[in-house]
């Protein structure tokens, strides 16, 4: 059997290999997904984001176990940072999910960011597609540990869960722009620690100020390590899912996300084509030198490079 047939038959090796091929920008993988795209059923994608050590992996593990009880097939993409120096990475999210390794209806894949700075990797969307074709009902994307501005997850997921921990800053942090704005559900993890109620109050006060009234993100207290609040968290995620479906927002959101993906794919391809030509002609180095020596301004140099696409 070829890789297409094996993937559709639920072969994990085929699924794993196709994800690798996408990660490595293998053209053959794009051709395969072109054919297989129509087999995808539209798996529901849940983003799990939050700061390093907030418990995203443990929470993902526990949420997956609840979905497994309902006999749902689950895919997990867990992302950790790639070294900007060596290109290597330690992908250590799986360590919290080892119980799930042997479940035939769970597929866990670790990915390095490989240069992306938005909290996920470039190939994450492709991996979501593959897991969808593989037959997953739900797909979790666990982002790298984020700070204040890594929000690519909102362009990829249907529901974004922001995992917080108590006492990570005051009420000013809660009203800041960026990651705090993209949550559909807030989960205050490790809420058995002091300060969880204060963190919840600060988040709620900030949410009181939202102008959008049709959906208000709930703030839940959970303790993933102790398996507390997990059922409630799943219920909140499902409630958001129902809201998106019934309001028609799910389709709008997916159109918006697909548009974003098309922009990025087009950008990548155009840059690849232009840069191939520029490198071939040694143009980039030459122009950079001229700009440095003030023989040329940077905008005219840019025009020269962009014009290569027409040659």
């Amino acid at each position, binding site marked *: 059997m070829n890789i297409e047939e094996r993937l559709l038959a639920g072969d994990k*090796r085929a699924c*794993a290999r196709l994800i690798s091929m996408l*990660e490595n920008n293998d053209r053959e993988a794009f051709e395969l997904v072109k054919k297989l795209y129509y087999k995808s059923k539209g798996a529901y994608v849940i983003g799990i984001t939050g700061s390093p050590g907030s418990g995203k992996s443990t929470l993902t593990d526990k949420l997956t176990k609840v979905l497994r009880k309902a006999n749902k097939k689950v895919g997990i993409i867990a992302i950790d940072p790639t070294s900007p120096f*060596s290109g*290597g990475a*330690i*992908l250590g999210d*799986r360590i919290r999910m080892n119980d799930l390794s042997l479940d035939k209806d769970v*597929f866990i894949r670790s990915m390095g960011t490989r240069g992306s700075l938005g909290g996920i990797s470039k190939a994450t969307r492709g991996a979501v597609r593959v897991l969808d074709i593989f037959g997953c009902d739900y797909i979790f994307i666990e982002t790298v540990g984020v700070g204040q501005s890594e929000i690519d997850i909102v362009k990829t997921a249907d529901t974004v869960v922001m995992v917080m921990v108590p006492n990570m800053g005051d009420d000013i942090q809660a009203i800041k722009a960026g990651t705090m704005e993209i949550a559909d559900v807030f989960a205050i993890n490790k809420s058995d620690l002091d300060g969880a109620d204060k963190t919840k109050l600060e988040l709620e006060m900030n949410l009181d100020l939202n102008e959008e009234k049709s959906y208000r993100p709930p703030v839940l207290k959970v303790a993933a390590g102790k398996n507390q609040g997990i059922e409630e968290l799943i219920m909140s995620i499902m409630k958001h899912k129902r809201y998106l479906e019934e309001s028609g927002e799910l389709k709008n959101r997916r159109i918006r996300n697909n548009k974003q993906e098309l922009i990025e794919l087009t950008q990548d391809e155009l840059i690849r084509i232009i840069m191939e030509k520029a490198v071939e002609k040694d143009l980039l180095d030459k122009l950079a030198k001229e700009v440095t020596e003030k023989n040329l301004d940077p905008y005219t140099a840019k025009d020269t490079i962009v014009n290569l696409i027409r040659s």
Partner: protein
Amino acid sequence: MDRPIRVLVAKPGLDGHDRGAKVVARALRDAGMEVIYTGLRQTPEQIVAAAIQEDVDVVAMSILSGAHNHLFPKVVNLLRGEGADDILVIGGGVIPDDDIPGLKDAGIEAIFTPGTATSDIIYFINNNLKR
């Protein structure tokens, strides 16, 4: 194609000492490899399931408990059973010299004992990948 080598670093069996495995994981990271670290007390079945899903080039295991003659070959056999015999399997830990030939016959392609320079492990991986 220029792609990072993916390595699963795992601790099969029951000993709770993973300092060595972490040092190796870090060295492989610094050598530009993607290291999937699965942590302590893994069964051979879990290691193989992870290796398949992660599509790794290498499985690197560390054992300090003395169970290497049982656990290392079991991982190799399970991988073969899955048709994943293109994954390079290497091992390390406190392993008596007398046991090494048997382990190599069983398909563990290199055994690194205490005192090995991490650069030797990196060199071995770079030169013995099966795909």
